[in-house]
Each structure stands twice: as C-alpha cells, then as structure tokens.
C-alpha cells in the first residue's frame, strides 16, 4: 500500500465521498491540501470518548470500531467519516475509536473544516446530505432491530412449539 498520497489523489478520494460531492475537483484539492494523512496500526485507539474533539477523520482504507461504554456501536469502513461530526470544538467525542486493522485516514482539524465551509458553502450541503443518509441508515437499523425483537420468542420458550 502506498504510504503517501499526492494532493490530486487525495482530491480524487474526497470527490468520491458524499460529503464533497457538491464541490468542484479543484476545490476538493484545496480541501485535500488541509488534510493530514495518518496511518494507524491495528488496535490503535485514535481517541477516547472523553477526549476533547478537535478532528474529523475520513477512512481511506481499513476499518474503525466505534465503541460506547464498551459496546461496539458501529464499524466505520473506507469512504466513511468519523470524529466529531457536529463540528463542535471544545466538545467531547463521546465514543471511543479503535482500529481493527492497519488503517489509513485523512485527518482534518475542525477549525479548518468549518472555515472551508465558509469558503465553499456547497460543501455544507453535501455534509448535510451525508449526515441525513447516515441518520436514515441508523433509523432503519433501529427499526430492523425492533422488528427482530418483536419476532423473537421470549426467553425459555421453545421456538418450535
């Protein structure tokens, strides 16, 4: 795997994401130039729930496990973003992020990202869309879970009877 991406490669990666679908390719390169490329070894804790939020991460390759109170809430794969997506500095991440394999990410500071949104409001639209999609997915998961719980027999009951 390549260790370092060029600005253009980073821009091409960004353009494939919903977040940046609305920005032009050259603007994506400008945004890419703000990103820091980071590699994490398997099992690395990227941040903890109580850490003050300062960054947003985009996974280029690998998988991240998001945990809350020791329970895995989601697995974040390539092309997905994580971190403090509320873009609230001085807030807390609110969950632990840990790699499960070698993981390659782009790291943006929240301040840079917010300022970039000021410059390119179209990015905010992409971001709202991406978050809305994620919310929809989460709602669907919750609904599925609810259905599964309803359909499953009560504890101790013979499912064949």
């Amino acid at each position, binding site marked *: 795997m390549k260790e370092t991406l060029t600005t*253009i490669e980073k821009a*091409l990666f960004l353009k494939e994401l919903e977040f940046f679908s609305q920005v032009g390719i*050259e603007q994506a*390169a400008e945004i890419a130039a703000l990103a820091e490329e980071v590699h994490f070894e398997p099992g690395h804790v990227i941040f903890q729930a109580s850490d003050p939020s300062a960054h947003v991460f985009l996974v280029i390759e690998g998988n991240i496990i998001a945990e809350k109170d020791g329970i895995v809430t989601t697995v974040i794969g390539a092309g997905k973003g994580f971190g403090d997506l509320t873009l*609230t*500095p001085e807030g807390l991440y609110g969950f632990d992020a840990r790699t499960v394999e070698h993981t390659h990410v782009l790291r943006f500071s929240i301040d840079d990202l917010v*300022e970039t949104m000021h410059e390119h409001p*179209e990015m*905010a639209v992409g971001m709202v869309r991406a978050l809305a999609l994620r919310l929809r997915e989460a709602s669907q998961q919750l609904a599925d879970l609810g259905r599964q719980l309803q359909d499953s027999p009560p504890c101790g009951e013979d499912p064949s009877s």
Partner: protein
Amino acid sequence: MLEVVSRRLGIRPTERRMVARLFWLHFALITSYTLSRATRDAVFLATHRAQLLPYIFIALAFFTALVSVLLGRASRQQQLQRSLAQMLVLCGATLFGFGLLFHLQRGPVPPIAFYLWNGAYGLILVSLFWALVSEAADPREARRLLGVIGAGGILGGMVGGAVTSAIGAAIGPESMLYLAGAILLAVVPLVSRVLDAGSSRAIPVVSEPVDERPLLRDLYVRRVALFFLVGGVTASLLDYQFKVALQVSSGGDRMQMARFLGYYYTVLNAGGILLQLLAAGYLLRRFGASNVSGLLPTGLVVGTTLALLRPPSLLLATGLRMWDAGMRVSLAKSAWEFLFFPLPSGLRRRAKTFVDAVVDRFSEALAGLLILGFVAVVGTSPRAFSLMIFLFSGLWMWANWRLQRAYVRQLSTSLRRLVVDDAETAEGPAEAQIIQEAHHMLASTFERRALYAFELLERMDPVGLDRRLGELQDHPAAGVRARAVGRLADPAHPLASPLLRNILHDSSPAVRDAAIQLYAARYGDAQTQMEEMLESSNAAARAAALTHLVSRSDAGSEPAVAARLDSFLESGAASDRRAVAQALAKRPRSPFLHAKLLQLLGDADLDVRRDAIATAGAVRLREFVPALVPLLSQTATREAARSALAAYGNRVVGTIGDYLADASVAIAMRRELPRVLAEIGTQEAANELLRVPFTTDSVLLTRLVKAQNKIRRRNSKVVFPRVAVREALQRDIEQWLRLHMHVETWEREDRSRARDLLLGSLQERLEVTFGRIFRRLGLLYPAEEIFLGYRALAGGQSRRTRAQALEYLDTTLLPEDRRLLVPLLEEPDRRLVLAESLYGIRSFDRVSSLVDLVRGTDAWLQACALFVIGFARWEDLADLVRGALGPEASPLVQETATWSLARLEES
C-alpha cells in the same frame, strides 16, 4: 448543388426540409392571394365606381376586425397548424363558392361581398402563416431563415401576377378564383408536415395559457400597434401620392400607365426577391432586427426631405413608393416578424392577428379619411401633400425608436420569464438549497453549527435572518443570542429598542456583554453597573466592565488604563486577552493604548487573534496593515482580516493594490485581496482591480471580476473603462476557446480515473471562464439582464429560452462586443473554425493537448495533465514531465510531476 445553395443562404442541413416546406407554403398562399385580388379588383371596378373605394376601405376595416375576432375565438385552443389547415380549406371552398356565384349572378352585391371577404381572409391567412413561422423558428434561426421564407412570398406575387397577365383575359377573372381556391386546397397536406411531429420544434396544442386580457392593455402591444398604424397610414399616403403623380404624368393614358406599372412591378419584385435572398439574412445577423426595422422609416424621412426641397416629380414619388413597397415585402417584413418573438406564446398569436388584420386595415381607413380631409381643407397641392408625408414619416421614425426601446425591455422581461419558468421545472439553484439548509441549521442546539448558519445567512439571506432575530433571543446557544443582539445593535434596526432591557437580564455573560455595550451607548446610568462588574469573578462580566473602562476613560487616565490592560494581558488566560482585544475596539484612536494590539494580532489563541483583527479594523491605524494582510492567507483568520482591512476604506486601497499587483506575493494572499477591494467598493478600489497585470491563476482572475461586479452592483456610478474590460474579455474568450478544444479532445478518449479528472477539471474551467465572460459583460451592460442571459445560455434551458437570450445579447451589445462574442454564440462545430481563424487555435490530439497544458501557466491543469501522463505511464512524455519540474513550478505541480516521473521510471 443543393448543399452549396443552402450553405450560401445560411440554412443548416437539419433545417432544409422545414424551410423548403415553409417557402412553398408561403409561395402558394401569395400566388393564390394575388390571383384572387386581381379578380376582386376586376369584378369590383366592372360594376362600381372607384369613388366607392374609400367607403369600402372603412367597411373593410370593421369587417376584418370582426372576422379575425371570430376566427381567433374559434381557433384559440387549437394547434396552430390545425388552425391554418382549417382556414385553408375554408378559404379554398369560399373561393370556389364565389367563382360559382359570379358565374350565376352578375348583380352589384357579390363584388362588394367578395371585396370584403378577400381583404379579410388574405390577411388572416398570411398572419397565421407567419405565426406558424415564429413558433417553428426561434429568433436566432429566424435571422437566417426569414429571408428565404419571405422570398417564397415575393416569388408567389410575381408568379401570381404573371399568371393573371397570361391567362386572366383568356379564361376570365371569375374563373381564376377556381385556380386560387385549388392552390389553397392543394397545400393543406403540406401544413401538417411543415414540422416533423415529435421533433423539438413540434408546436404543442396550447403552448401557454391564453391571455384573456384586452390586447391593448399590454404596453408593448400598444407600441407595436402604434408603429404599424403610423406605418400603414404613411404607406397609404405614399401610394396615393404615387398614383396621383402617375396619373398627372401620363395625362390619364391607360396604356401608358399600364406600361409604366408593368416596369414598376417587375423592378419592385425583382429587387425585393434579390434583397430578400441575398441581403435579408446577412443584414439581420449583422445589424439585428431593430436596426433593419428602422431602415424603412429612416429612408422615408430622407426621401421626403428631398421631395420637399425639389419640385414634385414622378421619379421622386416612384422612388419613395418603391422604397416603401420593396422594403415592406422583403427586409422590413422579415425584421418586423421579430417584434412578436418576445411576447408570450398565448399573446403572440393574438397580437399578430390583431396587427395584421385589424391595425393594418384601420390604417388604410384612417389614411382614406386623412386624404379626404386634406383635399377638402388644403386642396390638391403636391408640396403640401409631401409635407404631410414627411410629417408622418417622422412620426413613424419616432414610433420605431420608441418601439425598439420597448423591444429590448420586452426581450428582457421575456427572458426573465423563460429563465424562471425553466428553472422551476429543473432542480432548484444551489444557493436556494444552501439558504434552506442554513435556516434549518440555525435552530441547532450546537452553538458552532448554529453560528455557522447565522454567518452564512448574514451573507446570503440577510432579510430572512432579520425576520428571525426575534425568535433568536430565545435560542439555547448564548453565542447565537449574542450575535442576534449584535445585529440588533444597529440603532436603525426596527427591532432594536423594545428588546434592550430584557436582554440585560440574559443568563449568558456574552449576551449581557453585547447588551451592555448597546445599553451604555444609549443610556446614562451604565457607569454604576460597570464598576460592580469590574470586580466580578466572572470573566465575561469583567470583560464587559473593562470595555466600559477603556471606552469611557479620558486621555489623562490612559497610563492607568494601560496598566489595567497589562494586568489582563499578563493573567495568562485567553479570555482576558480577548477582553483586552475587544475593549480596545471601543477606544477612540489612541496609538499609546492601541500599540498593545500588535502583539495580540500574532497571539497563539485563534479567538484572541480574531478579536484583535476586528479591533484593528475598528481602530484603523495604518501600522496594523502589514500585520493584517498575511492573516488573509490563513483560513481561520481570513474573514476577520478581510473585514478589518475593508474597514480602512480608501486609505488602504493603494497598499492593497500594490500587494495585489505584485506577482511575488503568495498567491493565497493575493486571491483574498479582490474581496477586500470589493468591500471597500469605491472608484479607487475598482481602479486597483483593473491595475492588476494579466494573471493565469483562474481563482484570482474570477475573484477580480467578481469584485468588480460587486462594486458595480453596489455603486452604479463607478466606471469601468470599456477598453480595459474589452481587452480582458478578449483574453477570456480566447482562453474559453482553447479550453473548448481541450475538452473536445478528452471527450473522445476512453474513460479512466485520470482522464475523468482532467476532463472534469477542463469542464469546470470552461464553465468558470464562461461565467467570467458574462461577469465582464455585466460591467458594461445592465448586469441583471446579462446574468439572465448567462443563466439561459449556461445550460439546462430550453431551445427557445437560449434563442431568446441570444436575441437579447444581439440586440443589446455594441457591434464590437458582439463580434468578440461570436465564437461563444455559435454552434460547437462553427466554434472550431472560429477558434482557428480568429485566434489561431488548432484542434488538439491527446499528446498535443497534454503538451499545451503542461507547458501552460495554469498550475491546476498542469498538475492534472501530469497526473494523466503518470497514470497512463506514457513514457514518451517523460521529458515533458521533467521539464515541468523547474524551480518556478508551484508545489502542486512539483509534487505531481515527481509522482508521475516515479511511475514512468517504475514502468
């Protein structure tokens, strides 16, 4: 052969069939009408005296109006082609009927009835035909095609006349009606095939809701009607003058008159057809319909002036009549059809029928009355009659001038309507989506997000934001409440005063701080509150008090204030440093106290830096400028630095201009400077924007133009020198053509990640350059209309909307600007030819395109081209990649060239 003729006449292969059908249809209509008109005159004059004619003219005006209204109502909800076909059948059958009637009965009534019917149906048929043409061809196409289609009518007139002379006497005038009727019935099938069903030209049954308002309530229709009314009266007066001169000159000799009229009509028709085929298209394209339309009345004014200066003669009267009649059937006829294009489709058909059938006839009736009155009052003096024609020609020229101004306005209105209509059917514009999202985000409980939305709305929808200021006083985020108060601090704001006292009790110190500043500025009892707060353990409260201290102390107590400021600065807390930065903003200019700001401009804490920048902008000391300019290149401080520098106004314009023009200054910094000058917005700021030498940085180029647009929008008195703007325009057009050539090349290549990147980048550049061209035009012409034109042409709009936009540009732009813009307005295949002939830009193949891009000066496109070479591993181009690695190359180019070279060496 056919191809050569079509090309010479400006007809494109896809238009040939339609033009041919319209040409023959027009030919048939006019041939038939000429035959029936000859019959009409012959049977009328055989049974009635000529003195009856003025009364017939008046009756004809009313009859035509009645028939056109009835037919209009009957065919209102019908497709145009169907209406025309039905009219052809009706008129054909009626002609047969009158033919039979004349054979069966020789009384005095049938000739009068036929005279009236002939006068009405001819105009209505021709009017419907031209309405069909105006629906089928858009204004752009009409410029090329009307000449040819109009020639069909002239040819029809010639053939009709020749047939009448050849067989009229042999078969009798009444029998010619069978021939005229048969011609009309024969072309009925042609009508339905004029436009191929399912093509983009197909006319819907009802293209727009029928406008039921009285026609003359529309100002533009009134102007058009006035123009045709005055023109019609002038033509009738000229005709009368010509006939009187002919009668006097020939001494009433019928044979001599007939011979003269024979020559006259031959020359008239031959001249008309030549003018129509050879000159109409060219003149319309070159000078536009409005200028061509003015030729006829202008020529008449010149001619009638001559007629007044010289003794009356048949030659002069013939010349004037020939000019009028010749232009009416050729150039002017084509140009006048354009007058109806900007009307909504529902109104266009009604207006056309009204003008052709009613106004035209009424003008003849009015001329008849004028002549009767003139003869009764003045007598038969030719010179006095010439004077009357001169006056009417002048009046017609004036009506033309007023109409042309109304035409441009109507085009603009029509364009606006079409663009908006088209936009409503497409997805909403990005800005509207952003504003909508921002309003949702404003309700967020996350302060940062809500503040972001607040700032966005301040720029993009200030009116919408102001409407929400009341509810924002209860926003859960203190920062938002504080910003809302700050916005209310403008004493002129209508919402300000009722809220002040409640705000002082807000739970947030930040809100109280903003409110106290406002309160202190307005009321006298603030001092007591301030002193209590200065001792508070609450940082925000102390900050508010410090602000009060700094702002209210006199010059003598400056050392004490400075000591208090130092204690805040030394406390180590960023909140205290922010308090100092904020407090200094409230102090009238004091170099002693404000010197402390310089260190805060470089503070490690971003919020402190931002506050210091804002204060620098409020104080506007010159020594802060060199510290503020570099802060423009940092994302986090950019906006604050921009506002601060703009606050200096004209005092800093020269310095900003120096940075902007200096190519050695970092491009990231230079890119921000146009916005500063735009915010200053003065003539001096505009001059500095024009002083910048040509740059190839696309972002800077666009921002320079955007800044100029912003200044013009805010201050219409600012002047942008036409020569400088035109030079820049020419460069942009050349660049646009070059980009267009590159796009053509890469569209043909197989898809890959690298090819898509390069093609996408080229298309983005093309779009930006296109927008920039229109932005520059907006500096010279009404910006709003130019913007509408841009929206219509930028894509996603219908064929008619695009054509309307082109017509607007053609009509509005000066010839020299129009010439510059020709490559943009032409079809893609013509652009390639123009690119080579005007700018020497040839088509590229893959390699020559890459060479041109890599050796060019646009860093982003250079990088994309280098990426393509490395991605595809085109080793033959390794030297080209090495050549891009020079020391003057941008970091992006160097990075990509190094990557590309590494891949080439790997392979």
